[in-house]
């Protein structure tokens, strides 16, 4: 499993035998696989954003700075397509759970980090955690 990281955002490569994709009308749906077969629709992830509908795909929002980790489609190579699946609700907005990059590698940008190039593939998006010793709880890092 390969991992790419930009600041507090992680992209974990999803093995190809774990999920399948199928077209459901105009939307693409991500289905979990078991032993190479898609089982039911349980846990399927529908496409939430697509390249032809929006220019920016944000995977993490900033709270204090207003900065964000985002793919800007107008700044990518012409054949890059990124599809976001699922949605995770955070205290500063909704972000996708998975992304699928096709065509060419995509570049993600953030105001305080160098651009990160991610090869084509299928990735789970997650945010790093930190532990608050005052409240005794873990939480996702927010900048």
């Amino acid at each position, binding site marked *: 499993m390969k991992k790419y990281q930009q*600041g507090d955002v992680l992209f974990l490569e999803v093995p190809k035998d774990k999920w399948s994709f199928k077209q459901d009308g105009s939307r693409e749906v991500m289905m979990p696989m078991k032993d190479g077969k898609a089982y039911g629709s349980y846990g399927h992830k529908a496409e939430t954003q697509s390249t032809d509908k929006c220019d920016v795909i944000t995977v993490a929002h900033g709270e204090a700075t207003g900065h964000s980790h985002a793919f800007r489609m107008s700044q990518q190579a012409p054949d890059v397509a990124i599809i976001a699946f699922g949605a995770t609700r955070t205290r500063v907005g909704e972000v996708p759970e998975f992304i699928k990059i096709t065509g060419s590698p995509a570049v993600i940008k953030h105001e305080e980090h*160098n651009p990160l190039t991610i090869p084509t593939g299928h990735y789970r998006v997650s945010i*790093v955690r930190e*532990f608050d010793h005052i409240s005794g709880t873990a939480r996702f890092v927010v900048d």
Partner: protein
Amino acid sequence: MSIYIDKTHSLDKRDKLRDLVINKKIGDSLSLYAGYGYKHLVFHCIKMGKKTVNVYGYDRGWYNRIDHKVPVMKITKDHFTFIAGSFSHVTHDRYRHDREIGHWSYTFRGFLSMGIIPYAGLRYLRKGTLINFSDKEIATFYPMKVSWDGELLSRIPKKAKDFTESCYKEDRDTKNAAARSNYGNTRVVRLMKEAKIIGNWDKVKPMDVFSLTNVTKRTELIEHFGMETILESVPNMRVDKDEIDGRKYELLRFSFPRSRRNPLESETVPATYLKMINPSTGETCVEGVPNNAKNSWSNDVTMNTVKEALAWRDGDPDNIYLEPVALT
């Protein structure tokens, strides 16, 4: 969190069960399927004597012979007696839960979801499960007698009373700790804002870095005071240092005073932090990691390496750090 009670079918199920207890003959039976969220559970009620019905609980996806032999509940025309908290499969080694008091109880959850016993519900606290009746709330215990009207008939054992109190205490402590953290963060953010306006940072202390929940604000304060000043303000030791792909990390263990109200109090608690440098900007930041790598609630201090801390931070499986192919 509580149970969704299936009120649409509850009266029908209650009438059928009452009919079985009072009117049916010995050997007759009735199957009751649990409500929303527990539909995989089924209760098989068999009339065993003139006035008694035994209830056997099953998981429809997990057959176990012992479930046919040991009833989880007995019912008479006056009351229900909950004998066991769980069916056999949840006492399987993997899910073993030896606690008798405050057990999270499959029997209660599944049975209450049908709405047969009115005015009864469950409340899950961090330490255990409490069952609430119309007039009282108590940790689950066995055997427990409950009337058809949802009144607790059993005498409450002292163990259950004590356990209930300890559940409340832990719940209170957790809420207070969250409130303290929230208050600390809000206070420091306000003081920083004021300090920027008036240009006087006297009210902000280096120790306040640890109260901030936002990494950017924390980094701002570290830049203002300097990391050395912050490290001098709180007793600490370096547990480990490491260099991964040219990036330097340090694992620091601070000794925080147990009471923030009295910083001079000698009793301290350990708090582990990971110090690192943003590879893109060169800024230093510190982020908390639990003292125990495997169980963040534990008081045992076992987090001893930078890699363990990074693995926890990234949520890597088996706490083995997976180095990123690229990090910016």
